[in-house]
Every structure is written in structure tokens, then in C-alpha cells.
């Protein structure tokens, strides 16, 4: 088990390095540090010296991979790649272009993201599974047919419409909840209702259909016939046998995203003004703050790999056949 974890970590390194190289190539290919400087110094009255100063200040005045001016190791370390990219490995995200510490900002903003994403995820998963089980229970009836068509229709609606529709309907017309906003703690609960609901509804089509297909596939297996042959009630067969076995493929899809819940949702957060990492990212994209985007890419990869490891661990937990080594 320990060996397994160590090996997984060892696999993770080259992947993170690859992510690192890729983003470095992308971001330093998009925009030269000069552009960044001009962008961040604001629109009016910028002198070339100011640009130069900005670059020095933010450490963008270095060569990409090799610094002939450095001495010894510094030839390699005093470069954009090492300073701006490799340092991410130490979770040293550096400063955003406005000078704020990205690590600190991430630390602060991941909680609001989680506060929205976790209930969305948990309640959503519960709802999707419940509906899928319901449909599978009534398979080959009109309930299932109508349900599936409804799901396909829900799938065919762009996520933006759910957000717009939800805000207009629930908040503007019916005035059940605040249109947008966020507050930490219990007093902020009413802010969460709408984003969580919309987050759940927008995933309902895809996920429920997926789970339904999984359940149906399990339902076709021989052991289900055995269970019926034993005289078990259909509920027991559904919940204990079908759900129990479908848990394994469900886990693959589900556990891997759990760490990423910290990253939040881009659209939900920006529409609802939730100060999480999703809106942080979208702001950074729109403001072209590459330091933040780089950090978020790296963080995303890191969390993904973490998710993969968690998936494996959870496999070992639910599936007696799996032993990690």
C-alpha cells in the first residue's frame, strides 16, 4: 500500500513536469512579459522605463531557459522557467501580476468554492443516483421511457440557460433567494440554495443517464438473475446487488473529481459572485494574469492526480478483488 502510494507519486512527477512545460510554452508564447507589463500598468501614461521596471519587479526580466549572466547554478536557476514554472512544484505560486500572493489567495478562495461545489456534488450525486435507480426500477415501463426522453432534453440545454433561467425565475420573479452573493458561515446559507440547485440541475441529464446505463448493464449480469432466483425482493436486488456493484464504475467517475471540487465552477461562481477559485480563474483568463492561470493549471493537474490516487484507494475499499501494491 505504502509502496503503491510512493509509486503513484513517482508517476505523478513526470506528469506534473509535462503540464509545467506545456503551460510554460503556451503562456510565454502567448504574451511577452512586455505585454503583461503594459496590461498591468494600466491604460494611461506608460513609459518604456515603467515597463522595464515592472518586469524587474515581477521577475520577468529573465531569459527563458538559460541565463548566461548567472554564476554556476544560477545560470539555470535564474531563468523564467525555473523561477516561474518549476517553483510551482514547491507549491510556491509566486505573486499575481497585481502583486498579491497567489498561494494565500488560493488558500482563501478554495473554501467558498468548496462550500458551493461540495453540496452540489453530494446532493447532485444523491439525486442522480436516486433518479437513475428509480428509472431502472421502472425499466421497460412508460415511466422509464418518459424519464429518459426528459433526461435527453435536459442534457440538450446549455448550462448558461440554467443559470440565466434560475436567476430570473427563482430569484427575480419568485424572490425566494438572493439573486447572487456569498457570505461565509451559516448566515450565508441562503446564498447557496440557487447555485447549488442550478449546479445540480445542469448535471442531471448527463449524469443520470450515465448512471442509469451503468445500472442497466449491471442488471444484465448473471448474479442479478441469481439474486432474483433466490427470491429476493426487487428493492433488495436493486440496492444491495446492482447498486453495490455499480458503485465500482461510479467511483471511477466520482472520486477523481472530488479534489477538483476545490477549483469550483467557472460559470456558477462568476454569475453568482462567489469568491472562489472558479471566479478567480475566469477573472485571470479575462485579465490575462498568466501567473494565476499557470498556478491554476498546475493546481488543477495536481488535484487531478490526487483524484486518481484516491480513486485507486477507493477501489481497494469497495472492490474486494483489488489489492494495491
Amino acid at each position, binding site marked *: 500500500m505504502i509502496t503503491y502510494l510512493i509509486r503513484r507519486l513517482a508517476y505523478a512527477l513526470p506528469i506534473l513536469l509535462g503540464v509545467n512545460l506545456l503551460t510554460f510554452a503556451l503562456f510565454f508564447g502567448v504574451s511577452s512579459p512586455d505585454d503583461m507589463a503594459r496590461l498591468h500598468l494600466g491604460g494611461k501614461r506608460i513609459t518604456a522605463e515603467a515597463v522595464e521596471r515592472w518586469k524587474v519587479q515581477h521577475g520577468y526580466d529573465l531569459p527563458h531557459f538559460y541565463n548566461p549572466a548567472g554564476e554556476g547554478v544560477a545560470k539555470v536557476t535564474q531563468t523564467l522557467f525555473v523561477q516561474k514554472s518549476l517553483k510551482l512544484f514547491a507549491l510556491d505560486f509566486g505573486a499575481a501580476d497585481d502583486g498579491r500572493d497567489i498561494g494565500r489567495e488560493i488558500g482563501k478562495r478554495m473554501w467558498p468554492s468548496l462550500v458551493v461545489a461540495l453540496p452540489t456534488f453530494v446532493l447532485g450525486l444523491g439525486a442522480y443516483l436516486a433518479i437513475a435507480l428509480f428509472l431502472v426500477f421502472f425499466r421497460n415501463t412508460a415511466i422509464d421511457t418518459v424519464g429518459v426522453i426528459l433526461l435527453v432534453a435536459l442534457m440538450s440545454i446549455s448550462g448558461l440557460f440554467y443559470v440565466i433561467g434560475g436567476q430570473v425565475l427563482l430569484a427575480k420573479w419568485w424572490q425566494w433567494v438572493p439573486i447572487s452573493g456569498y457570505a461565509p458561515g451559516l448566515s450565508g446559507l441562503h446564498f447557496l440554495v440557487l447555485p447549488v440547485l442550478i449546479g445540480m440541475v445542469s448535471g442531471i441529464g448527463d449524469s443520470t443517464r450515465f448512471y442509469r446505463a451503468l445500472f442497466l448493464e449491471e442488471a444484465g449480469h448473471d448474479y442479478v438473475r441469481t439474486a432474483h432466483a433466490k427470491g429476493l425482493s426487487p428493492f433488495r436486488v436493486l440496492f444491495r446487488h446492482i447498486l453495490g456493484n455499480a458503485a465500482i464504475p461510479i467511483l471511477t467517475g466520482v472520486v477523481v473529481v472530488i479534489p477538483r471540487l476545490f477549483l469550483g465552477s467557472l460559470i456558477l461562481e462568476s454569475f453568482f459572485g462567489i469568491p472562489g477559485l472558479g471566479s478567480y480563474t475566469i477573472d485571470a483568463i479575462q485579465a490575462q494574469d498568466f501567473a494565476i492561470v499557470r498556478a491554476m493549471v498546475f493546481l488543477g493537474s495536481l488535484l487531478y492526480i490526487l483524484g486518481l490516487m484516491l480513486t485507486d484507494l477507493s477501489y481497494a475499499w469497495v472492490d474486494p*478483488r483489488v489489492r494495491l501494491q
Partner: protein
Amino acid sequence: MLQLADLVVRLPDGRHAVDGVSLALEAGRCLVLLGESGCGKSLTALSLLRLLPEGVTIAGGQARLAEQDLFSLPERQMRGWRGGRLAMVFQEPMSSLNPVLTIAAQIEEALVAHGSSQTVASLLADVDLQPQHAQSYPFQLSGGQRQRALIAMMLAGEPEILIADEPTTALDVTVQAQILRLLRDLQAKRRMALLLITHDLGIAREMADTVAVLYAGQVVEEAPASALFACAARHPYTRALMQVTPSLGRRGQPLSSLPGSVPLAGAWPRGCRFAPRCGQVQPRCRELAPPLEHGVRCLFPLDQAVASPPSIAAQPLADATSAQGTPLLQVEDLCVHYPIRRGLWQRTADWVRAVDGVSLHLNRGETLALVGESGCGKSSLARALLRLQPQATVRGRIRLHGEEVLNLRGADLHAFRSRAQIVFQDPFSSLNPRMRVGDILEEGLQALRPEMGPGARRQQIERMLNRVGLDASAMPRYPHAFSGGQRQRLAIARALCVEPQLLILDEPTSALDVSVQAQVLALLRALQDEHGLAYLFITHNLPLVGYFADRVVVMQGGKIVEAGATEIVMAAPQHPYTQALLASAPG
């Protein structure tokens, strides 16, 4: 006890797969439902539990158990009867058990469902499982243990009727014998009626009190086992089935032929459904559907008195062992090992020794049977012989025509490939479904005989198709248009196209119905006589070995435990394993 009358089972597309089957089960007796694939025997069994696959429905008939018609019970009540009064054991013990629950949990569940007073421990004891198996998961058990666990589960509701659908087909022969014995003991002890479904005459002979032979959705003959197997089969089909089953006793004789194959469900001919394949067919048979009278569904039933039992005296074929100087194929000390990687750096910590020091030889025109149970390494050996084992480490010596096969590279390897070919077990997976038959057959020629022009290739293919009993019209068609037997012929034709000297037959008939098996065996025999082919015949079926092979080697755990001429090994096995194998063979 249970009276099944006029059962009709309808498939989703409206065809009938079971067409008026009537059976009677009695307590403490065993009824064997015998039939080839697609005759409707499994659907009949599932109908009794009302567990038919989705879309398949019971379209008619009654099943009376204690004055109650099973088919008119409301679902709620039927559930209590399933696993309660009627229980069923399935074919695949692995997939029939829930993989993520322990054996105890799965048995417990059944006990709770039926409020039984038995315990998990007592049930495990009843099926000869150790108490510690209770906490095992199915994957931790062997095939036989799994089947026992499944049986234990089904006994939880103390059923009056136990239905077993090919309960031993997926098991090795030795295990098969144990499971059959267990079923028989349980039946006796618990006074259950046993409905055993099988395609194997041997099993039927061993287990049955009564045999019902099913053909094309109908019972064609029903008779006490004793009478039936004393060569009193009166239906031509039953008779033919018995005659096409190979055995040591039939060695040297051609098996009587049962042409064609079982018709598809619903695509039944008019009149007698067996008429197209029947040796005794009369014009009336094609017009009039015969009723089941006196246990036979035939207008012209055969007499009960029939030919003498075949003589056991084995007639050795041409004894090739001594004759021909250097053997065609010589294998010395062959090892096929798969690495097991472990630890941080995934270093090879150990090896799976699939084949561990095997030596054998094979002469031209000779058939060497390689016998063993699953996992003994016989398939690994076959693939290693053909250099088809890229993942494994292969050591030892393989010589074909004195050439070191393991050292061959490039053109030499190519040349070798045209001398040694293989026919696989499953005729469905061995032909690419997306290629036309002509292309499939041509592929080997293109690769190995680049010197041949398109015309020559075509000629060769046509010749081979004719030789295996098909013709050129097969070439533009896709494999799915052919039946299993025809596909296996195609596979043979494909191998023969490149004119090999050595043909490895990897269980070539085990996926086929007995009637078709006989046809394929006859073809193989004829081809061998014609081309002087050497066969390495891999199988687990001992009667088949007795019938077909010149010599036999028995493998166990990657090693050869016994080798010798077929008659000698079969008659007087030396190694205990061989003895066990022979003793377990049903029939």
C-alpha cells in the same frame, strides 16, 4: 409433482423458442433435459422460475406445482416461491455470484428472504465447503467451490425442486464429477426433484432417471434413462446423437454423420423439424408434424432393438511412433514464464511458470493429443510453439524439421509460419467479423506466399473451400453468415491455404455441438490422410482423445505427467492425475 404442460416461450421478435414442451418432475427423481445449443432447454428452465430475459415471454402453457399454476401466480407470491419451493443453479459459477459480497452474506440473504431455520454453516457443510469459506469473496474460490456456494445459496429456501442449468459445463472434468455427485447426494438426502439441463450424453447417462430430449423447441423423445441408454432410443435424432459422440470405443471407425446443424429458433422446417437432417426421412415427414406419442415425436420411430454395443477392442492406427526417423516437431525442455512485477520499481519478483520444462515430439501424419485441465499450460505451449508469445519469456528448444524455431528471424520466421498453423477453439472469435471470407483466406497467402499472383491465390482458396465442404460462393460473404461448424471449416481452410505441415488444433470442437463436432473430426481425419499433416490436438475431452489421437501427453501444472500411445494411456493410466481424469469423465 411439477407438471409442465405445453410451454410456449416467445422471443421479443415474436418467434417461438420453446414450442409446446411438457414435462413432469417427481420428488427424489432426476429429469435430464438433453439437447444441443439453441433447442430451448435453458429457456424452459428459466420459464419455471419466471426469470426469462427481458422481452422473452411465456406465451402459453401451465406449470402446476401443488395444484397451483406457477404462471398465474401474482409476482408478489411468485417471489416467495423462487428460491423457496423452486431453486436454480446456473452454468457460470463466477458470474452468477455477486463479486463484491462474501459467500456468507449471499447465503444469509437467501436465508432471511425465506425465513429459513438453516444456518450458513450448516449449508456450507451440506455442500462440503469449509466454514472458513464463508468469509471469502467469490474470486477467492475455485470454480468448483463457487458452484458449491451457489448450490448452498439455492438450498437456503429448502426447495422441493432444484433446476440445474448446465451446472458443470464451465468446470474441469474432475470437478465436474464432484459437483454431479454432490447434486445427486443432495437430491437424495433432501428428496428434491432435480431438473438437470445438459448437452452432454455422458452426464445424462450418469444422472438421469428420466431423459427428455429436446430438439427445435420440442421434446422429441422422453424415456427412462435406463431404457434410453440401453440403446433403445427410438427417435432418429436421439439415436444419431449417441452415434456421433466420439469415444475410445469408436476409435478407427468413422462417426456416423448427422449433417447440417440445429435450426435457429423459429426458423423451423415444416413437418417434422428433424426431417432435413434425418437419415430415415420419408416424404411424409416433410409434410406432417408428428405428435409426441409413447414418448417419441416421430412418424416412423425406430425399433428398440439395435446394433450391438461397439467393441471396446481398440484398433491401433498406423503406429507412427517408431516409423519415420526424425520427428517433424521436437520440443525439448520448453519453458514459458510470465513475469510478475512487484514493488516500487516494478521489478520482476517472480514468474508464473505456465509451461515448465516440457519435452515432446510429433511425427508427420500423426496426431498428438495434449490433455489437461484449464490452466495447465496447454494453450501457452501452443502459442509458444508458434512464436506468438511476445509478453512471456520462452526458453528451451523447439525444432521443426530440425530448424530452431526460437531463433528464427525475418524471412526464416516467415517460412516457418507457413509450415506451422493453428485452428482456434472459438469459431466466432477466430474470424474477423468485418472481413469477407475470401479476404480472410487470402490474408495468409498474401503474407506468406507473396510470390503467388492474385489468380493463383484465388485458385488455392477455392480449392481449399471445396476441400472443407464449402464453395467459392462463400468468398464474398462475411463470417456471420455461417454457422459455427462452417466457420470452423473456414478456419481450417484458412490454416491449410498456406499448406502447413504442422497444425495445432486448440480445442477445435469444444465450442461445437456434438453433431457438428463429428463432421469436423471427419474432415480433419480426411485432411490428415490426404496431406500427411501432423496434428497437435489440444483438448480436455478424454473420449475425444480416445477416438482421435495416436498418442497422448497429459499436462498438469505446466509439466507433462504422462505420455504414451492413446490406447495404453487410456486403458492403463500410470499417473494418478491421469487416472483421476479418466475416472471423472462422465458416461
